[in-house]
């Protein structure tokens, strides 16, 4: 168990004349025993952060602390990877192809010169826990992907690390076994109670495992906090997108019926409430902003007679069904709005024929408003905006 802290960490690759900043000014903290998630788009710098934690890469500036002790700072590694007592599961598992699975799992213990009988005991305990006992005598190349991943997890855990790092541990697994792999990692982590950090670009991994998450956007700490806060109150469009699907619609703010309203395309009008500061910033410049709404926060109503709870739902006008597709008991619907180029994705419990006209409601508390640079207008205190109270 260990606490990890990044203080203003920066990382650049390449030589002097062709230097490339990959991470800049990044600070966050992972507390004891936490299962911490790191998410971000491809190339955002997730692996780089993880490798700095592992000690495989040094920070160009800033410092990294383990339990308040500096392990690397300003281009120097003070405690090298082999002394950090870390277990790591690599994206492709990086198993030793020439060793049996048993020897793979035993390797960290051999490096520590643990006596043979202790090694056998430990390996067999872990193999039993992760249900790979029968594969121990074979080599990694001869077992399935799911089994390889479990061997990699066993190897990472065999030396009782104080920190477990997982880099996209599920991305090479078949969709069918992903969930069982996730729950396995979760069980093992909570059973052993060690601090763990999981890197993934797939929100499914993060939701399944991480209670706290750092979202990296373009090499910066986009937002760090509770995973659900990142989802429901993202700082920016980049964060909102990294952690889940979101529909983004350009809108202009106009006054309709004496109230502020975001006008989407030609016909759809969404009442909004803007803070004083947000309004004045809009007054001075152009009046456009971006409305963000997640698929599950859109409700489709086919029958105009249907009652919708106005305390929770905002009418957002009509739309046309473009296409319905199916996945896991849910129909995925693409909606087309008049005069809007981007389609709106949402779900429905039943099939809707293409071309059908529907009315659309947005969940009031989950409409997000972003300014043109992509920042959440509600998240910046000076320009707080909350959806209109009907």
């Amino acid at each position, binding site marked *: 168990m260990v606490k990890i802290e990044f203080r203003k960490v920066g990382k650049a690759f390449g030589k002097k004349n062709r230097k490339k900043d990959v991470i800049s000014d990044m600070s966050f903290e992972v507390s004891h025993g936490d299962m911490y998630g790191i998410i971000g788009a491809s190339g955002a710098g997730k692996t780089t952060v993880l490798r700095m934690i592992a000690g495989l890469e040094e920070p160009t500036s800033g410092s990294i602390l383990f339990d308040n002790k500096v392990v690397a700072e300003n281009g120097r590694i003070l405690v090298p990877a082999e002394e950090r007592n870390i277990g790591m599961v690599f994206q492709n598992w990086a198993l030793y192809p020439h060793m049996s699975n048993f020897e793979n799992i035993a390797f*960290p213990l051999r490096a520590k010169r643990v006596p043979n009988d202790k090694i056998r005991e430990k390996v067999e305990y872990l193999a039993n826990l992760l249900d790979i006992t029968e594969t121990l005598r074979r080599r990694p190349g001869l077992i399935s992907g799911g089994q390889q991943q479990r061997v990699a997890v066993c190897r990472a855990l065999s030396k009782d690390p104080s920190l477990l790092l997982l880099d996209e541990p599920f991305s090479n697994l078949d969709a069918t076994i992903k969930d069982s792999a996730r729950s396995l990692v979760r069980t093992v982590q909570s059973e052993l109670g060690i601090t763990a950090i999981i890197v993934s670009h797939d929100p499914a991994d993060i939701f399944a495992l991480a209670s706290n998450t750092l979202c990296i956007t373009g090499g910066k700490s986009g937002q760090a906090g509770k995973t659900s806060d990142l989802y429901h109150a993202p700082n920016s469009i980049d964060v909102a997108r990294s952690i889940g699907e979101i529909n983004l619609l350009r809108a202009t703010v106009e006054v309709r019926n004496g109230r502020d309203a975001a006008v989407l395309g030609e016909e759809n009008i969404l009442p909004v409430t803007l803070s004083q500061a947000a309004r004045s910033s809009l007054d001075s410049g152009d009046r456009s902003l971006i409305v963000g709404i997640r698929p599950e926060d859109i409700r489709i109503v086919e029958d105009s007679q249907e009652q919708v709870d106005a305390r929770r739902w905002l009418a957002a006008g009509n739309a046309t069904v473009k296409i319905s597709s199916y996945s896991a008991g849910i129909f995925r619907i693409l909606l087309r709005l008049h005069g809007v180029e981007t389609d709106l994705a949402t779900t429905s419990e039943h099939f809707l024929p293409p071309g059908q006209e529907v009315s659309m409601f947005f969940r009031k508390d989950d409409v997000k408003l972003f300014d043109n640079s992509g920042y959440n207008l509600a998240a910046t205190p000076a320009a707080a905006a909350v959806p209109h109270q009907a």
Partner: protein
Amino acid sequence: MTRFRLVSSITAGRLYTIGKYAVLVFIALIWLLPVYSMVINSLKTAAGVLTTPVLQPSGISFHALKVVAAAMERPIFNSFVVVLPVAVISTFVGGMAAYYLYRVQSYFNDVMFTVVAIATFIPYQITLVPLTRMLAQMGIFNTYQGLIFAFLIFYLPTGALLMSIFLAVLPKRTIEAARIDGAGDWLIYRKIVWPLVIPGSISTFMFIVVESWNNFFIPLILTSTPQMRTTSVAVLYYSGGFGTLYNESFAAALMSSILPLIIIVVLGRYFIKGFLALGTGSKG
């Protein structure tokens, strides 16, 4: 009409194939002339030497081979004493250097890499005077240690260069995984790197065995007594000239080349791979 064309094009193709192999076989025969002449001539009697030209066989006698074998026994033994440690050390220790260059990349290491390449490729003969002096000062002139030492100056860098190329195929992640697992460099080198580059190290080893076995110049200048001569130098004394019968020349040549020839026939792939690696960095 069409049928006729088809037939004629098939014969043209067949003619081409036959022609292709005819040319190949012809060139191969020229290439094999020295081996052929080594075999037939080292089996000739003195009378055969006087009555037949070099390319014409005459009878089979092991006399010349026996005579030369007696004289070459010691040089062949010397060659083994020198070549085996040189090849083992160059491969294993050169591999360690290769592992370092693989692990740590810096401008300084680019310089070291260049030095290693220069050591592999320069006309090493030009170091004769300072090298002889150095060995004399160290008191190892005309000794096995001296020969091994001198060979290592050139073949250790060769080993490092070749092993660098073969090491390049190792996935970096595998080495990093081992570091995370708490292994130090020595453990990683022995338990991870070495087992994974075995084909490459066989190539390196074979390449250095053949090259150092054949090295003529270094033992020529660094030995001063017949007892210390290596095989390639001993051949010089059968190079013809006054009163030598050519069956003995060929017998000596055969004896000095038999080991490299066996290596090339049995393990030719590895030897070729060594050259390919040296040239193009190809590891397969």
